[in-house]
């Protein structure tokens, strides 16, 4: 601390309050827009849904940055402290990619099993491929 005068830093705090509040309001607005509460029918346009999700995500990361750098005074810490706290969280990027992909794969398998379960038993035991060929040639003989 100590770059700003007392009066200046007091002002900065209320500015921070306004920034975080405004960003939160924008996030809620975009979320309601995405769900079709502001303009109905928008929730069916997948481009809007994806774009809104990206906007909300980026704004949340901005809020996180603002809290860490201004409220927790990370901006005033030495680079070594800053890096030793912030760099490890980069591991989470890989964590998200790996686990979200894994989750989507579980979902696909669940759908596949559901589809297979719906196949009727008659269809399932109908001879296929090589077996079918063998039966047909046997019939011909």
């Amino acid at each position: 601390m100590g770059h700003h005068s007392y009066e200046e830093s007091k002002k900065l705090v209320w500015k921070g309050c306004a920034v975080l509040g405004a960003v939160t309001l924008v996030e809620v607005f975009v979320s309601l827009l995405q769900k079709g509460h502001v303009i109905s029918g928008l929730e069916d346009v997948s481009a809007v849904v994806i774009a809104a999700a990206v906007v909300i995500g980026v704004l949340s990361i901005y809020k996180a940055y603002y809290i860490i750098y201004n409220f927790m005074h990370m901006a005033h810490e030495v680079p070594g402290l800053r890096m030793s706290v912030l760099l490890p969280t980069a591991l989470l990027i890989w964590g998200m990619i790996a686990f979200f992909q894994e989750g989507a794969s579980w979902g696909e398998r669940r759908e596949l099993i559901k589809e297979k379960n719906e196949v009727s038993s008659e269809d399932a035991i109908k001879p296929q491929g090589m077996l079918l060929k063998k039966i047909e040639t046997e019939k011909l003989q």
Partner: protein
Amino acid sequence: MAANTAHHEDVHETTEELWSGGKQPFKASYGKLMMWYFLVSDAFTFAGFLIAYGALRFSSPTWPVPDFVFSTAPFGIHGAPLIFVTFMSFLLILSSVTMVRAVQEGHRENQRGVVFWMFLTVIGGAGFLACQAWEWNNLITKECMTVTRNPFGTHTDTGVYLNADGSRSSAADDAFKPGMGYLIHHAHLDDHGGGHGDHEMTAEETFLAAANAKIASSNVDMENIPEAGLDFAGFRLNEEGFIQRKFITDAGVAAAQENGPKAFGALFFFITGFHGFHVLSGVVFLIIIMLNAGGGLYAARKNGYEMVEKIGLYWHFVDLVWVFVFLVFYLL
């Protein structure tokens, strides 16, 4: 930068002086540094939970729609999506702001200022906990969501509901399309549909009143519903006493409402509960440190109220985690 000029002075020191102790490698006290590292580990715990939530959500064909699930607020407000949680977010942001003010007053060694702003922070934290208690109570007692039961489902087709007597409903609100959420209600035999008084009944309330009347008149033993449930013309009564409304899709398929993905309840209560527990312990520590500050303990230490700074770091972190809990549970 102040950090750079300080670094220059270090260069002139001999190795021996550097190893003689009493040096702070990161220009931060031991306590503050360890608070930062505790927060890093805590961030990974929360990230693990939130990533698990994401993985399970991606694995599920449908997921409860947050703007439908979280649309009630105190004082009988219904159908107001996300309003209450936005208010809760503002409470946390405000309490974070008052915390920064407390730390600033601490640097000026202003004891009264520290206690005053910490007191406001405690009020904000307690207010948040009260809101969360209301939200949980509403979900558990009114909407019957538990760790293992999720009555919030989502439609995957376009279609229309049946009335309680099995006829096709003609109410506009009874038509649905993919992605629309529904809540499966528990049967209330004391509900005769008359008590809504001042407002016109919605299509769903009309249906529920008729369904409850049908169940009451057919003398169902609510304690011993068969495992397969009971079949009525326009709905099913399942083993646990929930009314699963029947519907017909535009493709002509007849079906009944099913519970939503089971994991939702456990994830919601566990993650928001873990965050709420952080807020609770934060409030307890804030109170202890506020009382200590008021008693003059930190003034005697003459270190710019460093203890207030440390609890401040923790408190901002709780706000920081809420940013992401808010993101995944309510906004997306």
